[in-house]
């Protein structure tokens, strides 16, 4: 894996990390969910910076190219993250359903109350 590619990936990762920080400070994403992205970026940077280990792991698992291995692990982590997101969405959907139902029933009760007074 060429040094140039490694530097490119590291630079991209750092820009991404800055973007995450920016969003956290602007309170656009909650700290809870930013953490997994942050771990992702750090992992990628650590992997990229340790070239000898990188080459060793590549040979050990039998990847043709070091870059393949980096992308492979990036892909796996992304899979985990998107699955986590699906889980979060499912919980949110359930909560929204419950809230919608309760609000609708409450709305009805308030209307009835207004009519009776």
């Amino acid at each position: 894996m060429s040094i140039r590619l490694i530097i490119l990936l590291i630079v991209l990762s750092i820009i991404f990390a800055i973007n995450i920080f920016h969003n956290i400070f602007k309170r656009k994403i909650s700290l809870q969910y930013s953490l997994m992205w942050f771990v992702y970026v750090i992992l990628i940077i650590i992997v990229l910076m340790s070239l000898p280990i990188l080459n060793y792991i590549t040979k050990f698992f039998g990847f043709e190219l070091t870059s393949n291995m980096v992308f492979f692990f990036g892909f796996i982590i992304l899979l985990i993250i998107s699955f986590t997101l699906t889980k979060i969405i499912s919980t949110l959907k359930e909560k929204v359903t419950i809230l919608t139902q309760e609000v609708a029933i409450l709305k009805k009760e308030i209307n009835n109350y207004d009519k009776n007074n």
Partner: protein
Amino acid sequence: MKVLLIIPAYNEEKSILSVIENIKKIKVDESIKLDYVVINDGSTDKTKEICLENKLNFIDLPCNLGIGGAVQTGYKYAYYKDYDIAFQIDGDNQHDVSYVPKLIEAINAGNDLVIGSRFVSELSEFKSSFLRRVGINLLSFLIKVCTHQKVYDVTSGYRACNKTLIKYFAFNYPIDYPEPDTLVQVIKKGKKVMEIPVKMNERKTGKSSINGLKSIYYMIKVSFAIIIADISTKKENK
């Protein structure tokens, strides 16, 4: 005894009034207090206006939840208002409400869930299309394998349940295509389920929620839901 008819309505402006009129014609014992509640599931047509104008008893969901979420709202309402029996009836006149007293009788006879069925007798001339019947038979077979109980009309949305199940449904109800799913859950819990022949009419207005390619997706999804319900529902200790 208080009985509630839950009528989920999504864009049913053409039929909702006649459904309510038919409900008012139902003759029941004096000991039974029969109420209805329309659940307007975020309709985009005039369903809400019609409910308001005609002073129908209705709950207006602020956004569309899908049939399961709408029906569950009804069960929650029934639970909070302490109803003894809750019915689920479509808002498009497919279900002939004159069978309501028969279903009430069946609940009072000790059944937990009573399903109004198209297939257990020749009463209903409308039995839906051939392909749909094949699908329903397949699901029925799958449920038989899972629960060892034969139910014919597994997708029927014409059903009544008692107080125990009102409470259960109020807090556990699937959002998509809930009928077969809940059926398996209820049987697995060791509740008594009974089918009663009813007449169903072909829908005159509105569209079925299941069409074309969607039906294959529906079959896969529902089969999946049945198997999951089968595995994850634990039998209740009596």
